[in-house]
């Protein structure tokens, strides 16, 4: 059994990514490398902004994890530099700063997602997988299909096994997000950010209740579960 990545025992990622981690804290970087490698990904490390920039510029990475405070060149400047050279590799910013403003500046500098330290590894993994997939995103698709579950984004209808399911607007958005990231782990925080557009941590697990409501609507009366709970991480929509 794999102890280093306790969050992902049930689902092995079958599409390995090439990841660049720019992080000056040696221990944190080593931990990330180990955990991400065990999840099946290839990881390169850079200990400062300059090295990171050079690696990112030359290597062809699927996704980058960039700490904000780096020696020699700070994370935001690395990202801005890459973006100005036309590099569109998705970037997850890591930061010990955690105010709303910090997040906004990070995203404005060209970051794609923002995670505050200390973070859960499961959260980081889920986010970089989503980021990596965003490159070949399903934005253009109007019909999402997972197993026998269908969601029509134009007519706002949901069917499972041909039977129409009536959802509240928010439930529809929730399912839409889950289906867009089908077969990927989606954390509670990701749902709160993307479905509700809130970036704070509610004291009660409000998301769980919303998900279980949705689950009862799309699973009750059907043969197989489709919305799975990933222990210690979040949820995953997956057929079979």
């Amino acid at each position, binding site marked *: *059994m794999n102890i280093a990545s*306790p969050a992902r025992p049930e689902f092995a990622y079958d599409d390995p990514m090439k990841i660049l981690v720019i992080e000056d804290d040696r221990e944190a970087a080593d931990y990330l490398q180990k955990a991400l490698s065990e999840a099946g990904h290839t990881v390169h490390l850079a200990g400062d902004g300059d090295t990171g920039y050079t690696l990112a510029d030359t290597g062809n990475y699927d996704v980058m994890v960039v700490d904000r405070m780096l020696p020699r060149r700070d994370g935001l400047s690395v990202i801005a530099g890459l973006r100005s050279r036309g590099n569109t590799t998705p970037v997850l910013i890591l930061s010990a700063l*955690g*105010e*709303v*403003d910090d997040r*906004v500046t990070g995203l404005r500098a060209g970051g794609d997602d923002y995670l*505050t330290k*200390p973070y*859960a590894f499961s959260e980081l993994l889920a986010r970089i997988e989503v980021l990596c997939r965003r490159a070949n995103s399903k934005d253009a698709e109007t019909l999402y299909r997972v197993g026998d579950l269908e969601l029509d984004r134009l007519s706002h209808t949901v069917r499972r096994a041909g039977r129409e399911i009536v959802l509240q607007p*928010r439930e529809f958005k929730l399912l839409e997000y889950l289906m867009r990231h089908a077969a990927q782990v989606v954390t509670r925080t990701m749902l709160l950010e993307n479905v*509700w557009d*809130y*970036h*704070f*941590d*509610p*004291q*009660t697990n*409000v998301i769980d*209740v*919303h998900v279980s*409501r949705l689950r009862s609507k799309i699973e009750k009366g059907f043969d197989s579960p489709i919305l799975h709970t990933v*222990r*210690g991480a979040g949820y995953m929509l997956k057929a079979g």
Partner: protein
Amino acid sequence: MRLPASLKTTAARLSALYLLLFGICAVGLVFYMTALSVRMLTSQTQDTINEEAVGLANAYQRGGLPLLVRTIERRSRQPGANLYLIADPNGRILSGNVESLEPGVLDVEGWTGRPFSYQRYGDSSVERRARAAAEMETPQVESELRHAAIALVLRLPNRMIVLVGRDLGEPERFRVVVRRSLVAALGVMALGGLLIWFFVGRHALRRIDSVSEASRRIMGGDLTGRLPVSGAGDEFDRLSENLNTMLARIADLNEGLKQVSDNIAHDLKTPLTRLRNRAEAALGKRDGADYREALEATIAESDQLIRTFNAILMISRLEAGYSAEQTAKVDLTEVVRGVAELYEPVAEEMGVALVADIPDGIAVDGNRELIAQSVSNVVDNAIKYSAGANAAPKVVVGLERRLGEVELRVTDNGPGIPDAEDRKRATERFVRLEQSRSQPGSGLGLSLAKAVMKFHGGKLELEPREPGLSVVMGFPRKEDAQ
């Protein structure tokens, strides 16, 4: 070179500066006055000489040379400062009261340009010594005096030379007196300056030293100490009073900080201890599933700690006047409806009826994220506490425009907080009233909401209900959403 401390004071520097300035002014003034007076005396002297010359000219016209010589001889015998001389064309002195004079004086007709020296008849060495003895203090001045004079040199038609002059003793003496009094005055001024420096400087020094001394004590840790105020109401008192106000403010902040750190120590130590105990207990277990359970509990506990930390950080930043960069128009209607919708399933699950009565189009200026978070904290609290209601648990969220403000009211029918003091304390950091100790939470929810409201220039108040509690959040009213 190092100056002694007493010379390094401001008072010493000021005294020296004033002394210098006054000295320069006094010297300038005296020189000006002296020059003026001397010029006046000189012109008087010249007038006298002119009059004499006119008198001699009359004598010459009336009686020719003999009368002139007689007149000169007569006048020469009279005491006074006037000088008379008649000489032949070669400059040999024929008559008058001048025994000898500087060579060359008689060569030029008209006024002698500068004072010249001369020797007078009857001005015997005995008399000179006697006068010198009488004026012992200024013997050299006396010797100068003896000779100096100005004169008018005239030539008669027969080329004889007539000199009418006047001794400059008077103006010179005046000049000497003025110079002497100037020196005396400067001396007195220097003495005065020293005295002023001594008294003013020492007085100011003493006041400043007492302020320094008090500050040293306060820096030493005695924050209750205050600077001395003499009661004179002068600059020193005003300075001390202002510094004292500042000290009081610092003491308040310090007290607050101390209280907060005590609370932090308590509220973080407790979960840390739990965390440690749990890890230790897990070590004694054999089974993999037990390990897993223990680790999951550890992670959950850590997450709660992180949450507490984040809340503390956010409150401090808000109270420190958080950069309001992200302030914009916030659709309060949307935010409150969103939060109500977010919590509705939770409320239903807990058997609480969540009723939201939100009118359209109410907007405020602020940070959407912060407002959403504080509304969510308040609603979260209300749902938790109303669950313990005797009657059917119910939470009502209301939003309305009032005079000058927008009021958001979250009312539950739970046990409430009957005691007014407790209601006040409930929004302080880490305060969890006894009856709520059993509820999960960091005790920071309401404090954070209050900090957010203060940051927005609004307020957060608790009002008792029968039964229950209303949390009233007042936003300063801005233009309404379109």
